[in-house]
């Protein structure tokens, strides 16, 4: 019998952890239904449906969407839609590219010996351990220097001028994602027996077919985990995006930060709730995919 099973300490620790992990999220979701526009205290749900929004001071009395007033408000907010579009575009593009580069790097580090291998391995950890703000400033400096020089050298003017925007955000996201993908895929490759590849070649598959039919399917769970990690990092990245974005490339975290500086309406909560829901569904989906893969197929 497990001696810790009913220890009050274990129960207390569990309650503590769950409270601090999930209470803020629950409160955040609750406040997205807040009748109060100022969102300082919870003043009850929005009680009624009506043709038009009816206000009583800072309290919403009735709305066409009823309790979901702030979600409807959110859907009408073009800035949010644009920011969400930017966020997803950047996350998908950067994840795709970073996953390819990271997987290739992991494969190379696993199977080849070369002079600068210890350096290559170490250089993967550096972007992970250095403060993000340092990296953000570094990337910004690099871009402004390089762009300034290129704009001058090629006499670029007007729209042709190189400037910060979606491109620079994507590139810098790729830069910080690659080490994560590489490390996750490397962990998966640790137990990879090269006799699987030898068997494929022995049976007549050339190098590319061997990779396509045997190696890649076998490391796919690792690649997917790496991609998912990279994707979530990109979705909620604030610091690096803050330094490298430009006009028209506002992402959701940047947008929310901008809202917070003015006024916190429950719209922010509604946005966060939608966000959490999407991530939650994505995680469930991935879990389901992986469990289906692991289960024996009859």
């Amino acid at each position, binding site marked *: 019998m497990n001696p810790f099973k009913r220890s009050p300490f274990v129960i207390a620790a569990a309650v503590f952890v769950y409270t601090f992990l999930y209470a803020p999220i629950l409160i955040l979701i609750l406040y997205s239904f807040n009748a109060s526009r100022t969102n300082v205290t919870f003043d009850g749900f929005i009680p009624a449906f009506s043709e038009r929004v009816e206000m009583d001071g800072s309290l919403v009395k009735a709305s066409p969407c009823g309790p979901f007033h702030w979600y409807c408000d959110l859907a009408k907010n073009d800035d949010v839609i644009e920011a969400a579009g930017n966020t997803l575009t950047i996350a998908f593009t950067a994840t795709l590219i970073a996953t390819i580069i990271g997987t290739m790097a992991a494969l190379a580090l696993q199977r080849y010996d070369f002079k600068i291998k210890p350096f290559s391995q170490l250089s993967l950890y550096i972007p992970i351990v250095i403060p993000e703000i340092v990296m953000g400033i570094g990337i910004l400096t690099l871009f402004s220097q390089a762009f300034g020089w290129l704009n001058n050298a090629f006499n670029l003017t007007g729209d042709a001028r190189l400037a910060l925007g979606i491109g620079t955000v994507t590139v810098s996201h790729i830069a910080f994602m690659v080490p994560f993908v590489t490390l996750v895929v490397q962990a998966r490759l640790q137990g990879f*027996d090269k*006799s*699987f590849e*030898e*068997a*494929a*070649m*022995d*049976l*007549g*598959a*050339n190098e590319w*077919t061997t990779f396509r*039919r*045997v190696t890649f*399917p*076998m490391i796919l769970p690792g690649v997917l985990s790496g991609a998912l990690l990279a994707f979530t990092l990109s979705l909620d990245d604030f610091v690096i995006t803050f330094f490298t974005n430009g006009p028209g490339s506002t992402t959701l975290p940047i947008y929310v930060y901008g809202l917070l500086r003015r006024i916190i309406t429950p719209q922010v909560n509604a946005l966060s709730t939608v966000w959490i829901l999407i991530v939650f569904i994505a995680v469930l989906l991935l879990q389901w995919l992986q469990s289906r893969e692991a289960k*024996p*197929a*009859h």
Partner: protein
Amino acid sequence: MTSEFAVELRDVVKKFVTPEGNELNAVDHVSMQIKNGEFFSMLGSSGCGKTTSLRMIAGFEWPTEGEVYIEGRAMGHTPPFQRKVNTVFQSYALFQHMTVAQNIAFGLEMEGVGEDEIKKRVGRALEMVQLTGMERRRPKQLSGGQQQRVAVARALVKTPSVLLLDEPLGALDLKLRKEMQLELKALQQQLGITFIYVTHDQEEALTMSDRIAVMSKGKVQQLATPVEIYERPSNKFVADFIGESNFLEGTIKSLARDEAVVFVPALNAELRGMPMSSDFVNGEAVAISVRPEKIRIAENNAKGDGLFEAKVLTSVYIGSDTHVYVDMAGIRLKVMEQNRISRLDPSSFYTKDQIITLLFMPENTLVLKKD
């Protein structure tokens, strides 16, 4: 072009660089000719070069020097997927993300065989290894023995001219291993395909092989039939490695055809035996090897050639045989006697300090080079 030999290794060397930076000859000037349709084994302990030799035939490694020929064609740097050999791996290396049928079909797909033909041949291959009905299983759902069969079927379905087997039974338990040994041997005889079999298990090699290459330190120590290897080992290493041997030291006193007379200082007597090398000289220090079961326990007080007295140290009953450890003029020997008579009577055992007479027959007394 067909050749008399399925596979030939000509003066093959494989050098590896150890992590400390030293050069190591994993395979050191190895030559062997493997005949068509032969069950050929490479036998040796780990690091003897047997697996590296096999991998060079498969194409996973390329020789540093020398050449590998398959059906008379020099292989050079031909990649594995262009060689007419297939391998059964020690770990089986079954593709976990494919079903049994997909595993077996893989090699045929690579050849571009049509779908119907693949289905037919996969069915036949499964029948051959008695796994019909397992098509849709995943490798992980099979027992070790079944996985091993799938690995064999996957390699054989391509009808290679040579099948390479790298310790294929190493992961199985003893009973299953014995069954699979017989099955593999039967399969090989039925198909007439050349098998090249790598193992460290001498019993396995002796039971299954037509010929065995005993390897050590990257070199072939002896290449012969199982009987020759056991009865006529070419040097002390082979005599020691295969089965058990008692060793005596002496110097050659006289040489004749098929007979050498060796003076053994410890016994202060001469022993007659078979010279296992052609270039002995008179006065040369040699090793004499006698198998435990080939030393006879003679009637007491018998006198004559090859008869010596010894003192019993201990005797161990193991069912089919009794092992008697004796001290013969300071040399410890092991003598094996078959229990042809019932040993229920305690007096039928040899007791400690009993003096017995041993008979060494010249045809079982092997004179070997001393190194």
